[in-house]
């Protein structure tokens, strides 16, 4: 069944402003727009531009579940969200957030889909039918009796979608749903959303990965500093210009940082040797990976790439000893005086921040190495200079913005000058500008640390192209390629096999390294 978009209004927003409690300036300021039903709308803007706040207002969480001050009005299918009961709103609108792990309530797939329906007080036989239909629609029927924690990242995101869709909303709001998905998983999710839109669902999606989204969107709302600066067709030259002006689209300037892989005139020394490594979790039928062998020399920036669930993070965890491999061996070069062998920044960098100030955070490691006070001060100053903001030193680390926290976590790890720095998905959820800023910061820290090597996991080919000197590709439990980024990006068959690119999908700007489509030009596929 295909229904063409109609002119029926799904959302009416009039003069919406919202200021969070404890803040003086509004996060959303005087936004007015209306969205027709059965359309696909993209909300674009840099991190902190107010996208998530706007989605929360559209979901009725603001003002009903928030302590800040709201002005203006939001109407969903004729229902004013102010004072509306959560149950009444839940029947109209569903919200899917970035991290499915934090939204999953139950331990079994079937029960997760049923959760919302139980809240609606529907009879069990009706719930059973809805659960069956939703799981089938999202391709999760085979997982019905599985534990939710056994699903891959992409499956969890689809499970959240199934849970929301089972409740029969007319409007679906998605807050950065692609952030944690590999390219193939993202394409599959977008195709599913496209199918749902054709069946009559209205979709509003806030996302950084605009290359995948803009070709499908009917409309784009561009936010900059909380203000709605553009609202129109994604193929419109003015909208494109606004996207670039707001930092939602960034020119790709190519490689980030110097790529020297050896000291001047010296043969680079080996930092890590991995031979025939294998890892299998208890209770799992297959190993995460096996027969993994590679080496890393000083100065290298090695990307571990692969689809969700391919074992990238597990490989990093094995190197630092969080996970114990069942076979093979690893040899790490002994650290020189005043340095360490390995540094780690996990996917959630906040887990490494515990000091009262950024200064203490940066000084923590060097002090543990028993360096003298002058050397500690030098390293802190060096790291702060790489961060590019000396004013941060007196701030509590956990009070900084998300991007700043990540940079501080990397800098804190680098003050020990580890021979090998491990970064687990460092660019996940970052907009393009912040991603490039982070990688530039890492580059400066690498220069300061004198030939450390970096091993980082990612499924973002833009990061591989602009930052890595080598790529290791994990797929189906094996290390299937160890090559240069250029070789990887040229091997279409390998990229598809490893779910890093989808058949028929054109590489985006970051992967190609080309400039943005010229203004006024049609950067994407023809409009529907």
């Amino acid at each position, binding site marked *: 069944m295909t229904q063409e978009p109609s002119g029926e209004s799904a959302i009416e927003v009039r003069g919406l402003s919202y200021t969070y409690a404890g803040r003086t300036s509004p996060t959303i300021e005087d936004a007015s727009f209306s969205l027709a039903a059965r359309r696909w709308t993209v909300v674009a803007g840099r991190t902190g531009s107010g996208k998530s706040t706007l989605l929360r207002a559209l979901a009725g969480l603001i003002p009903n579940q928030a302590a800040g001050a709201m002005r203006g009005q939001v109407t969903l299918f004729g229902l004013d969200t102010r004072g509306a009961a959560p149950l009444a709103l839940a029947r109209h609108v569903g919200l899917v957030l970035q*991290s499915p792990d934090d939204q999953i309530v139950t331990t079994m797939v079937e029960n997760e889909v049923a959760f919302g329906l139980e809240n609606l007080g529907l009879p069990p036989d009706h719930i059973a039918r809805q659960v069956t239909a939703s799981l089938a629609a999202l391709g999760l029927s085979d997982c019905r009796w599985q534990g939710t924690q056994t699903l891959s990242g992409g499956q969890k995101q689809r499970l959240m979608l199934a849970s929301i869709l089972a409740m029969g909303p007319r409007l679906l709001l998605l807050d950065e749903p692609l952030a944690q998905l590999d390219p193939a998983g993202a394409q599959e999710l977008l195709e599913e959303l496209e199918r749902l839109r054709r069946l009559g669902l209205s979709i509003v999606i806030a996302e950084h990965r605009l290359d995948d989204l803009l070709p499908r969107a009917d409309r784009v709302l561009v936010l900059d500093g909380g203000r709605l600066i553009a609202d129109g067709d994604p193929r419109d030259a003015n909208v494109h210009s606004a996207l670039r002006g707001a930092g939602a689209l960034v020119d790709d300037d190519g490689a980030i940082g110097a790529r020297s892989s050896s000291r001047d005139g010296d043969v680079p020394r080996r930092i890590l040797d991995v031979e025939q490594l294998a890892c299998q979790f208890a209770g799992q039928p297959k190993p995460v990976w096996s027969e993994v062998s590679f080496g890393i020399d000083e100065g290298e920036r090695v990307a571990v790439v692969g689809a*969700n669930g391919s074992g990238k993070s597990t490989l990093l965890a094995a190197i630092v*000893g969080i996970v114990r491999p069942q076979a093979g061996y690893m040899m790490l070069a002994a650290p020189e005086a005043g340095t360490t062998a390995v540094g780690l920044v996990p996917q959630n960098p906040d887990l490494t921040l515990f000091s009262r100030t950024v200064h203490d955070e940066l000084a923590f490691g060097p002090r543990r190495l028993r360096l003298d006070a002058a050397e500690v001060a030098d390293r802190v100053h060096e790291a702060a200079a790489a961060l590019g903001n000396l004013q941060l030193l007196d701030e509590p680390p956990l009070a900084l913005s998300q991007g700043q926290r990540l940079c501080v976590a990397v800098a804190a790890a680098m003050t020990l000058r580890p021979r090998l720095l491990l970064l687990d998905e460092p660019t996940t959820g970052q907009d393009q500008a912040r991603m490039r800023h982070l990688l530039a910061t890492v580059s400066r820290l690498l220069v300061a640390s004198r030939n450390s090597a970096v091993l980082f996991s990612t499924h973002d080919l833009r990061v591989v192209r602009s930052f890595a000197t080598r790529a290791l590709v994990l797929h189906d439990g094996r290390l299937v390629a160890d090559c240069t980024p250029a070789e990887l990006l040229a091997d279409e068959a390998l990229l598809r096999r490893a779910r890093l690119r989808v058949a028929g999908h054109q590489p985006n700007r970051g992967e190609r390294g080309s400039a943005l489509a010229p203004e006024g030009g049609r950067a994407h596929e023809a409009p529907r």
Partner: protein
Amino acid sequence: MSIIGPIEARQETWLARRDPRLKLAWLVAVSIASVLVDSHAALVALFIATFVVALALGWRPRTWLAVGVVLLIVAWGTALSQAMFYYDNRTPLVPGLPLYREGAVYGLIQSLRMLAMILAGLGVCLSTGPDRLLAALVAVRVPVAVSFMAVTALRFLPTVANEWAVVRRSCRLRGYRPRLWAPSREGVNSWRIEVALVVPVVAAALRRASTLATSLTTRGFDATQPRTAYPPLAMSGVEPWLLVALVLATFALSAAKSLFWLAEAGLYRMPALQGLYDLASQWL
């Protein structure tokens, strides 16, 4: 996947698949019994019963290891405190130290009360999915707000534990080596660092709680509203009989002890119940 790694799937045994209301009844029965019984034989029997049930739940060796550590700490703590403060017919364990053998033995016996309850409680929590546990608690009229908070805490416990492991590992990679009984070189005691390490775990938990609350609200969760249990709880086969047996046994035990205490206190005594009084005196 994060660097934390996946949580392992649990293989369920026959006993672990039983109706969660039956498991709750078991927990309540064990709790009542562990408070009521006083004889050493009954306490040992109660502990053995909970131990056998825990064995039948099919825990993994590492789960047993963790449970064993908890049980040992409880038994050790109770025995030690009783060994220190026992005042009747006491024999020093070690000359010169105020620790007494009779107190230690008494403490070990008394610790069986707590060990039985711990085994029964862990047995219920570790063998029942939070969603089923929630349905069972709601079915026995525990307020949704209370039961939901409890089962959600259980659901996220492994995540918090794994995050704590990442925090500690990251810290060790930055050169930290706990020296809990000696100040470090720069004068910062390791205890202060240990306390500080809790901060990122708590911060992550708060962020997660905020996300979860948002998700719950948009999915229509309202603790004040009635909700359906899906799939509906239904006992089958031997389960109703086991439930009846548990209820009757708990009731019989409570009645026997109550009558015994009334007789002991001289408040109510029936000669016809002398056999019951003797049984309660000797075995309960």
